[in-house]
């Protein structure tokens, strides 16, 4: 089923504040096997020029995912969540995300298209600090596979 095109251009209200914690950064780098001390040890991070331990490049997927879930679960959009897969992801880095940052994410729908029965939706997440300093822009393409293909 085609997605509702009227969602293109829609921008959502800012997410609740997400406070970046040292323990969460450690948990995340443990999960991807990254042993660089700048993610774990505040002294090592400061020696490398960061104010506190620094998040690894894909850390803000935590905020992206929450936005994605909010947008795609809107019944008016008409998206079958069980058929959705992550097609691609990009991050543009403005400033390093460090422990203590209080982040908010603003989500928007960049495009919606249909091709060969599959639907494609591109969502952008502007991640800034609470006071508006840019941190990361995340862009995700989600693919909703054709319901007729394998059923």
């Amino acid at each position: 089923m085609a997605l509702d095109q009227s969602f293109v251009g829609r921008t959502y209200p800012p997410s609740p504040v997400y406070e970046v914690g040292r323990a969460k950064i450690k948990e995340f780098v443990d999960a991807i096997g990254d042993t660089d001390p700048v993610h774990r040890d505040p002294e090592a991070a400061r020696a490398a020029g960061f104010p506190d331990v620094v998040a690894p490049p894909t850390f803000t997927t935590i905020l992206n995912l929450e936005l994605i879930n909010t947008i795609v679960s809107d019944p008016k959009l008409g998206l079958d969540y069980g058929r959705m897969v992550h097609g691609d992801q990009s991050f543009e880095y403005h400033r390093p995300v460090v422990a203590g940052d209080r982040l908010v994410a603003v989500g928007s729908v960049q495009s919606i298209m249909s091709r060969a029965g599959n639907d494609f939706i591109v969502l952008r997440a502007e991640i800034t600090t609470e006071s508006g300093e840019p941190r990361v822009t995340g862009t995700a393409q989600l693919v909703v596979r054709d319901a007729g293909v394998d059923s």
Partner: protein
Amino acid sequence: MSALEKGAELPPLQVRLTRADLVRYAGAALDHNPIHWNERFAKEVGLPDVIAHGMLTMGVAGRVVTEARVGTLVSYSARFTRPVVVPDDDKGALVELSAKVGAVLDNGDLRIDITARFDGRTVLGKAIAIVRP
């Protein structure tokens, strides 16, 4: 550090992803989609078995760039072209990562082209990191 030229290779990396790694990542990234831990559910939606999170593969692949310490990351992007299928055993799935300088841009930034392979085939498409030396 000496300037990297086009074609220069970064140190490669091999990572085994087991079911335990997927569960750990699901908790860390707050991504609890059952296709990443529930075999029954994965098969119901047409997958061969439980698959790794695309973002886990992308996160691990990013280490090839960050661990080489070639500069500050400007951007990082990837397409998820094939799933990494993770069996229910202790060996898991072997993901082989490599990267090289694909281009030196006009402003001096490096375009690092990353390759991620599982089972002999690439699983990320257009995996590119732009790095400012």
